[in-house]
């Protein structure tokens, strides 16, 4: 399925957000997710189904002021 992951178009073989994270090899990394601009809590990823052209944001801790 064609998805836009962190601004980059990719083909990802996954039906759910949880499966997409697995397919993208995030493994156990500490990340948070948003789908089409809406926050998706970790506990909801497995029940969050994806559609063609969905925009996924995957973020992690980073330096900040």
């Amino acid at each position: 399925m064609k998805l836009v992951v962190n601004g980059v178009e990719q083909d990802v073989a996954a039906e759910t957000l949880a499966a997409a994270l697995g397919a993208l090899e995030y493994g156990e990394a500490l990340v948070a997710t948003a789908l089409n601009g809406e926050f998706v809590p970790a506990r909801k990823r497995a029940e969050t189904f994806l559609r063609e052209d969905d925009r996924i944001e995957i973020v992690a801790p980073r330096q900040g002021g």
Partner: protein
Amino acid sequence: MQHDGGEELETLKVYGVELKSRLLLGTSKYPSLDVMGKSVRAAEAEVVTVSVRRESSRFREGQEFWRIIRDLGVRVLPNTAGCYDVKEAVTTARMAREIFNTPWVKLEVIGDRDTLAPDVFGTVEAARILCTDGFEVFPYTTEDLIVCDRLVEAGCKALMPWGAPIGSGKGLNNPFGLRVLRARFPDTPLIVDAGIGLPSHATAAMELGYDAVLLNTAVGTAGDPIAMARAFREAVEAGYAAYRAGPMQPRDLAAPSTPVVGKAALT
């Protein structure tokens, strides 16, 4: 007030958390993560600001950064830096809450790209949403009295007026406005956030009676960030101690410090 000079410095209590350090430090712009960690230790900061940014599954930069922060044993204050509208800031705050497992958020809704001035209208709106949602909001704001009133009404139990634009290093642009805020909100923790460039600026903020200062660029981009972190720690402590000691009132005319009475008549 005691007069023996032995008055103990009080802890800062914010959202129910007691802090000994009144210097909150950012984690960005250091030459390396190692220098960042050493600077946080030199500052003796107990709270550091962090952000969330896109993570690549290949490079995983965020995971290494987070490991270092955890090892420092400090409390984190996640920000919504770079957000220009309410929805973006609220979504970023929710992602940060999950990642860092804290209700604290340094709320930034930016209104102007050149000055990074806060969009105070958006900040109030986002603060209302986040406070209702259980967040403990530290709003980055101007020193505008009415905006600060609205932020407190929205549920904020701390305020973070800017000293000057983020990263400008100009110090306190409006000491009068900051002083008015201190008088109006005697029981709300007030933290000068942004614009601090020199230790003397931090001292000046504390001498106004502010509870703490938050800074990043002044330490991160210093020639020797670790030494500068130490300098800021001492500056904040000096300003706080001076405020508590009761500074003299300035006056227009001179007043001799040496007694006039008893001077020998020699002319």
